Structure formats: structure tokens, C-alpha cells
């Protein structure tokens, strides 16, 4: 069985987490940084969102297997030259299985497992591509993702991050060209009102809370006029 699985039910405090992660990294032939691993580092990683917040029992923080996986995976990536900011960014949406895929030592000496994990990484990578294109460019969400050769976990992770960074740059340029703030796209909360199965109205949610009777009647008349407008109907048929 995998060594990490033997810690599936593990729980402990911050010092124990640091010590155990160090032992696993060392025993598995991964970067030996037991001198760096301590409670301060764990608190720092928690602040950065790399490690999830521990449960508290009084003053004592309690960590479990997921925290252990997060810490081990993070140290693997740090050794691979990966900045902490990016690790935190990616760990925030990574499942436990995703994180385990980043720990190459789990596959050491087991070619079958290495093959299965490689296929899972390919799958995860393609899902990420699909997810990203759905989030940013909904109209392209059905496009078949580009298929590339599989590489090791951390390398694939870097590729994924690089891909995301490139897309964010493209997004900033696109927003500037549209005359919108470059930092981020405009986000608005909308409420969809389905008046009929074939007729829906979108209203700004915060404005909806403040709408007056006169405004509502005015909008009703405008909708009626619009629906009956020959130019609108003609426009729909072109």
C-alpha cells in the first residue's frame, strides 16, 4: 500500500504536522527540509491559503490528513521553483486527489500506478482547460481541448499555471480594448425573472430591491411596446 495512505486517519498539532511532513519528504527521497518545516511555516502557509485552516480544540490547533497532503505537496512544488502565491491560488480549488497527483514519490517503483496517475493527470489537465475556457469564454466551452504529452505532476502544474497566467493577460488586454477597468471584468449580480417560459427579464439585483411601483409600471409599458415594435420583430427575423 502507499505510504501516505497509512496516515489516512492521522490527526495532530502543528509541530507534529511539520515533523511528519518532514519525515515523509525525507523517507520518500523528496527534498529534505526538516529544518525549514516548523509551526511558523505552517501558519504562514495557512495565511496564504496553501494549507486549510485547522480545527480548534480550545487553544490547540488540530490538523489532519488533508493538511498533511497539502503541506507535502506544497513543499514538493516549492522545491520545484514554484512561487507560494501561485501554489495558494491553485490549492484553493484542488481536491485531495488533485494534490496527491502532485506527489511523484507515491508512484516510485510502481510502474502501473505511475501510468494510472499519468492518465489521471492528463484528465485533470484537460478538465482544467475546459473549465477555464468555460469560465472565460463561454461561447467556446464546447471546443475540444488541445491534447499534449503528459509530463510529471509539478511540471504539469507549472504548465497549467502558465496557461492561466497567459489567459489572464489576454483578458486584461481585452478589457482595456473594451474601455473597461483592466484589473478585472465588471461583475454584477442579476436576477432573472421568467415572465413566461419564452420570456425572461434580467434586472440588477440591488436595483430590484429598490424599484418603485411607478418604475415597475413604466418598465411594463416599455416591454409591451418593445414586444410589439415592428422594428424589433423585423430585427429578430434578419
Amino acid at each position: 500500500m502507499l505510504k501516505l495512505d497509512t496516515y489516512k486517519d492521522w490527526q495532530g498539532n502543528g509541530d507534529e504536522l511539520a515533523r511528519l511532513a518532514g519525515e515523509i519528504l525525507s523517507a520518500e527521497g523528496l527534498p529534505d527540509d526538516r529544518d525549514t518545516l516548523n509551526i511558523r511555516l505552517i501558519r504562514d502557509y495557512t495565511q496564504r491559503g496553501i494549507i486549510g485552516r485547522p480545527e480548534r480544540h480550545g487553544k490547540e490547533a488540530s490538523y489532519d490528513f488533508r493538511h498533511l497532503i497539502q503541506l507535502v505537496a506544497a513543499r514538493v512544488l516549492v522545491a520545484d521553483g514554484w512561487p507560494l502565491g501561485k501554489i495558494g491560488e491553485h490549492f484553493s480549488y484542488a481536491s485531495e486527489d488533485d494534490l496527491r497527483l502532485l506527489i511523484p514519490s507515491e508512484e516510485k517503483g510502481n510502474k502501473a500506478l505511475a501510468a494510472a496517475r499519468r492518465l489521471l493527470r492528463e484528465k485533470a489537465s484537460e478538465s482544467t482547460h475546459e473549465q477555464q475556457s468555460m469560465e472565460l469564454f463561454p461561447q467556446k466551452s464546447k471546443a475540444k481541448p488541445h491534447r499534449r504529452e503528459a509530463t510529471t505532476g509539478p511540471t504539469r502544474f507549472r504548465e497549467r499555471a502558465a496557461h492561466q497566467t497567459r489567459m489572464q493577460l489576454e483578458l486584461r488586454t481585452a478589457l482595456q480594448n473594451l474601455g473597461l477597468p483592466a484589473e478585472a471584468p465588471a461583475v454584477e449580480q442579476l436576477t432573472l425573472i421568467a415572465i413566461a417560459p419564452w420570456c425572461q427579464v434580467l434586472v440588477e439585483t440591488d436595483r430590484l430591491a429598490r424599484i418603485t411601483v411607478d418604475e415597475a409600471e413604466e418598465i411594463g409599458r416599455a416591454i409591451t411596446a418593445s414586444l410589439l415594435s415592428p422594428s424589433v420583430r423585423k430585427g429578430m427575423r434578419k
Partner: protein
Amino acid sequence: MTNIDLILQPRRDAILAAHDNSLDVLVCAQAPDASEHAVARQPFNLVLVIDRSGSMSGQPLDEAKRCASMIIDGLGPTDRLSIVTFDDEVDVLVAPRLVTDRSAFHRVVQGIQCGGTTALHEGWLRGAEQAAMCANDTTLTRVLLLSDGQANVGLTNIETIAQQCGVMASEGVRTSTYGLGHDFNEELMAAMARKGRGNAYYGSTADDLMDPFRQEFDLLFSLCARDLRAVLAPAEGVRVEVLNRYEVDHDGEIRLPDLAFGGEAWALLRLTVPRSVIERTDTELVHLLTVNLRHRNLEGKEEMAGPVHLRLPRLPAQAFEAIVPDELVGQRSAELEAARLQETARLAARRGDWNEVEASMEQLRSIAKSSPWLSATIRGLEQYVRYRQTERFSKEALYSAHMMSTRLAAKGESSNWGYDQEGSKASFLRRKLEQGKRFDRDRDADGRPDGDV
């Protein structure tokens, strides 16, 4: 050392002098009889991957649970089992664990509930990962995938999924597939098993599902050699074509099915021997082919059988024609031709070209005249053609063709066919009439297919 007999049997025991020759040669790898060997079997490392999508609700899931229970009951404390289920999400219900407490596995199986859509690829892949965790040379590692549907979530491309099954098989994790009903994607399930070096089965109804599970389980219990590869070395100028639908490795080795006690793995070769090859030989016998067989024994160690050589006399036309063709080679040749025609008919049915289907069936009837088994098999297929049941015909034709082309035969198999005769054989050596029906249901068939006519 596993005592496998490697035999070469040509259609005729000679070649025609002063002519180009085309010659069919049967290569047989025969296992010892079970009674001769009281050998401890290898530990199993099995993963059950069960589709729990909405369409499985009711009897299909109940039957799947019954099959899973049968497997659990057949395993011992040295075997490992993992259970994975999938709908649109995949759950590893039990990671690979020694079967020391069967009741714990039974409880997990009984708790499986139906859900949503069919993430077949991810379900299989997670199953393969579980299997890989404990895969090694001394265990029989296999993923048993059961589904009644189409892969409609995640990766769905047949070629890519099958290629991944091949990758895992080359690392010792094989895949067998079990289709259920008439809505599953038979091309996907068959391709996964073929590339995954496992077995492909289907059950027409939930009631037919236990038979293939039993078949595979009996086979695993009776294995005496695996990873069989026939290494062919034709004489210079001789061309060899493999007529079975076996995978051929990059280095030209033919992958034969795993061999069980009392069984015979076989391949039919078509040798093209140019006249120049025959005339350049001074000796009485013309050397045509050398075959070796590589395989792994029950301890996972590489062994080899052979070499065996094919050397035949060249005879003038009259003497050559006087030689009685070998009956077994003729039978196997007919089976492979029947497999080819069933595949042609299947593709035509998928196109809706029933005229071509009828034409292929006509040819099948002609080929089957000399074989009671083939004749009876084709009668079953004809029922589906008569009522234009595309899905049923397509599935039965595909699995029947696959079985005829890759089946493990019983040693000394007779050309005769009868229920009692077949029923006395190990389940994995029986020649069934319908692949989608349990063996004893064939006997009850009243000649008209049930269901949507």
C-alpha cells in the same frame, strides 16, 4: 515449469510443387489437464467498477450486486478487492483490501444506490488506479467494469479510452468489460477489453449477467499461463498473415489469450509461399516457419515453449490433391470467416443496409453447413435480422465475432455440438449459441427473440 505443448498443424501436410502456395496453418498452445497439476493459484487483485447511473436502477443493479457478491464469496484472505462505483461522479467505496472479512465487502455492495449520468472513463480510470496500487508480477490484477450505458460524461472517445486500457494492460492492469442490456456502447466496451487484454462479455438481461462473471471467475481460477506471445519466424520469402483478431506487438509477437488448464489457445496463420522459395530448397522437406511461445507462469516468471518448425514435402498436383485436408484447421478457418462476415453484417446493420446484412447472412449459412455450432449460432442471429433489431443484432454479432476469433478452445474439441457436451466443459471453454444469454437459456429459446420487435 509449465508444460505447454506447442503444435503446428497445416491444412494439408504438403505443399504443391512448382506453384505459388497459400497455406493455412493452425498454431495451438495446449495446456496440461487440470488433474495433472495441483498448483496453487496466484492471488487476485481485483477491482469491481460498477455503473450506478440512473438506468441501472432496479433489477440491473440488483443483479450487479449479486454478481459482486459471487465474486466476494469466491475470494480468499490472500486476495485483494477494491470496489468503485460511478455515475456522474466516481466513488472509491473500498480501496484495495485483503478479503479477510467478506461480510464487510457485502455490506458495501448492498449499500450501492443509483444516481445520475455515466462517467464511464473516469470510473474505469479510478478503478485502474486502485488496481495499480497493489499490482505486481505475482498477482492477477484485473479491473472488471460493468455498465449498461454510454459514456456521456468526461472522456468519451473510444480510441483514446481503449488506448489507455492498453497502457494499463502493458503495466499489468488488465480490463474486462461487462455490458448489460441493449443500450450500452458495445464498440467501446469491446475495444476496452481488447486493448486492455481482458475479456469482453455482455448480458442481454440482468438475468444473463451472472454467466459471464462466472465464466471469467472460473477462468481466473484455472489459469496456468498468461501473457502468451507467439513469436513467428517465417523462412525467407514466406509471408505470414494472422487471421485471428489478436493484438500484434511492435516486435511482431502475437498476443494469444491467457491459457487455462485443459484449454488450448490458438491462432490461424495464412502462409504465402512463392514458387521461388519451394524451388530454391534442395532437401526433401521445405522449411516454411519456426514458432516459439513466450509466456509467464503462475509465479510471474518468463518461460518459453518451442521452437517448433514447419517443414513440408513438396508434391506434384495429383499427390497433393489426394491429401485429406485437416478437419480442425478447416473448422477454425470457418469460424474466422464467420467472424469476419458477422462484423461486415454488423456494420451494415448500423448503416441500416439490411440488404447487405441479408447477403452476409446468406454467406454465413453457406460456411456454417459443416459446423452444427456455427449453424445454430447463425439461426439465433437470423431472428434479430428478421425483426430488424439493430441494437440486439449489432451487439450479438460483435460479441459472437469477437469470441469466435479469440476464444480459448477445449483440447480435443469435437466438431459436433450439443448442450450436454458443452455443459460438461469448464464454463470458459463452452461454445455458447448466444453471447448475451446465459448458457442454459439457449436451451429454452423458442426461436423468437423477446422484447421490442
